[in-house]
Every structure is written in C-alpha cells, then in structure tokens.
C-alpha cells in the first residue's frame, strides 16, 4: 500500500510539473499572438498608405512577442527539473512557478499590443518619434520581465 502511494506521488509530481510547463508557455504565447496580431493590423493599415514606414511598424509590432519567449524559457527550465523521483511537493512548486509568467505574460502581451498599435498610429503621424513609441510599449514589458524573474526564482526552489 505504502509502495503504491509513493509510486503515485512520484508520477503525480511529474504530472504537475508538466502541467506547469504547458501552462507557462501556452498562456504567454496566446497573449503574444493576440498582442502581435493587434499591432500587426495597425501596422498593415499604416504600411498600406505609406510603405516607407514598414521598419518602425515592424519593430513595434514585434514587441509583444517577448512574452512567448519568456514562457518558452520557463517551460524549458521546468522540463529540465523533471525526473523519475520528483516529489509531489516539488511538482506543485513547479506548477505554481509557471503561473506568474503564464498569467502576467498573457495579459501584458495583449496590453502591450494595444500600446504598440497606438505607437504605430503615432509613427504614421510622426515617424521621427518611433523611439518614444518603443519606450511606451517597453513600460508594459517591465511586468513581464518581473514575472519571468519570479518564475525563475520559484523554479530554483526545486533542487
């Protein structure tokens, strides 16, 4: 009986860790897709009238894609921690470690997409102010970076 429970614990630990790995990436990547999509629509609008503004528009459009990269990093790190003897406790830690980048990444990517779209509108009017648009969008990035750090710190709890 005890043997079965221990065995189950080990497998549940891995299961929870894999769940976390999946969550971290898919939430963050979903947010990035939405954010890049929003900015992309705005970029297409501007470029259709003024093809010369393609480069600044593209730079701004790409900004919300970083959240997916962060999610990817966390997923890889969690997968690196998984082994046959992962305890239930560690499994839970890894699951919860993925949540900051998952949720924060999801929302911040969408909002960053909106800021980027607004920045693209700004570039349509004043191409020389592109850098300011990028700075405004980077403000949202800060929270995704915090989330990434927290996720990494949490993962490091698992020896």
């Amino acid at each position: 009986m005890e043997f079965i429970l221990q065995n189950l614990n080990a497998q549940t630990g891995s299961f929870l860790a894999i769940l976390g790995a999946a969550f971290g990436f898919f939430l963050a990547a979903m947010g990035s897709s939405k954010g890049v999509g929003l900015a992309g629509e705005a970029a297409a609008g501007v470029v259709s009238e003024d093809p010369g503004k393609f480069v600044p528009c593209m730079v701004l459009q790409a900004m919300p894609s970083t959240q997916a990269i962060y999610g990817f990093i966390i997923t890889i790190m969690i997968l690196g921690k998984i082994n046959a003897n992962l305890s239930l406790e560690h499994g839970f830690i890894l699951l919860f470690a993925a949540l900051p980048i998952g949720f924060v990444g999801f929302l911040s990517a969408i909002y960053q997409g909106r800021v980027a779209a607004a920045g693209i509108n700004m570039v349509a009017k004043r191409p020389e102010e592109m850098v300011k648009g990028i700075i405004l969008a980077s403000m949202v990035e800060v929270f995704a970076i915090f989330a990434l750090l927290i996720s990494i710190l949490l993962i490091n709890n698992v020896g």
Partner: protein
Amino acid sequence: MSKKNETNFLYAVAKIKAIENRLLDKSKIERMLDAYTPEDALKVITEADYGYSVSEVSDAHIYEVLLEEEMQKTIKLLSDISPQKEIFDIFMQKNDYHNVKVLLKAEFLGIEKDENLVETGAIELRKMKMSVKERSFIDFPPILRQAINDSLDTFGRTNDPQSIDLILDQACYKQMLESAKSLNNDFVTGLVKALIDTVNIKMFMRLRALKKNWDFAQRVLLKGGSIDTDVYINNLESPVDSVIELLRYTSYGNVCESGIEDFKNTGSVAALEKLCDNYIMGYVKKAKYLSMGMAPLIAYYVAKETEIKNVRIVMTGKINKLPNEQIKERLRDLYV
C-alpha cells in the same frame, strides 16, 4: 462599445491616421489664399489629389465638380476600409433627406433641379429619383417613408413647400439620432446631439430675428438634443442677454456668448455658424488621440467635410476677388 469590438477597427484607424497627413493643413490653405488667381488656388487642391477628374479641370469655376467627387471618394474610402459600413449611415442618410427635399420641391414647383442633388446618399440617386416619381417608398427606412408621406399629405392640404423642409428636417435628425444610438457608441451619439444642438441654437436666433411665434418654433426646432426644445421656446421672447446667461453654463457657452454677441451687433448669423462648426470640430478632435474604435473614422469624415467647406469658402472668395482678411474670417478650424 465593448473593447472587443474596438480592436476590429485597428487596421482602418491606422490607415486613416496615415491618410490624415494628406489633409490640407494651415500652410496649404495659406497657399491657396496667397494665390493671385482662382486657377492658382485650385492648383493646391489638385496637387492634394482632389476628385477623380483632376486633369480635366482647368477652369477654376468648375471646382464644385472636384469637391463633390472628393466627398464621394472619401465615403468610398471610409466604407471600403471600415469593418462596419453602417457607421457612416448618419451622414449618408442626411444626404438622402436632402435629395428627397430637392426632388419633391422640384416636382411641386415644376422645375428640374438636378444640380442640387448629391450622389453620396445611402439610397442610390437613380433609385431615389425613380421612387419619388412613382411614389413607391416600400424599401425606404420607416422614418423616411413616414416623413415623405407626412410631407406629401401636408403639402396637399396647405400647398406650402416650406412644410416639406420642416417635416423632412425634423425626420432627418430623428433618423440620424436613431442610427447613432443603434451603433451604441457614445462618441457618435454625442456628435449627433451636438449637431442637433448647434442647428437649434442657430435656428433659435433666426426665429427670434424673424419674430416667429411659438407654434412655428415648435415645428422647426429639432428634438433629441442635449438642450431641450422647451428651453428655446420658453425664451423666444426674452431679451438676448438672458438667453446668453441661460446657455452660458452648457457646453455651448462659448459659442453662444461670442456668436450671439456678434449677432446682436451685426444681425448676421455668419459668426454664429462658424462658431458652431468650430464647436463640432472641437468635439471630433477628441478622436485625434484615439488609436482604436470607430471615432477616428467618423472624425475623419467630419474633418474632410470641413476641409471641403473651407476650400469652397476660399474658392468662392478668390473668384469674387474678396480680400484675404475677409476670406480668412470665414474659414473654419482645421482638424490637423
């Protein structure tokens, strides 16, 4: 409107923001003013790609053709890029009512007045002509149909062509307000209400000047604005200063104060009209800093309309050889 809907307009808004750069700005208007001949002034707007038949227009006197074409071009552009075509209904329906008025009056007075018709209605002009001729309004919107029947009926009894104007104008703004409300967008509803209010304020001053009675005012003043028609009707005979006092604390305080002051001194509503137009422009300028939603598209339409109005003012001024100061005085505020 929900945020989800708002992002549908991202492409259209970004495109419009890029196109806005091509609106005539102050320096281009100045260039038109500085032109020696009307032809030179016209060059500025042909350079700005006005209309379709640019190369064929060499005579400054047919600039109207260009302006009409430019309006059509604007509506086509906006409805092409907008994911929701019905947002421009409020403006296009206004043109329908205009066309109906022109057609009915032309018929009753027994004259052909095709040059006053506009192509940019929600109902195709050819179809509109046919329907009015055959009196079959089955597929017209209910408010328009009702208004046409009412005005035909009233005209039949009174033989007064003015009644057609009164009934159709009243219905026109009712329709605009209804269309705006169905869009469920505060910006658009606010715009139509502001349009109604400014029409009413101008009308109110004219009514006072012509010493019209309450009954007539009741028929003329438009309902649905943010200032109730009772306010005007109750003050039809009170002194001018008390009217200014009354409207001072509405958002039209500024318009009324200087506009009515000018009206008192000169007896002309020209200044009041300009202030009203500027008020509307001030309202739509709020959309300048929005990057999603339908407001920037609506604002672009109003901006273009105002631009065309300004071009018309400059061109007529140039053709009639008015001094620049006089032309400048009449120019409306620009969007850019």
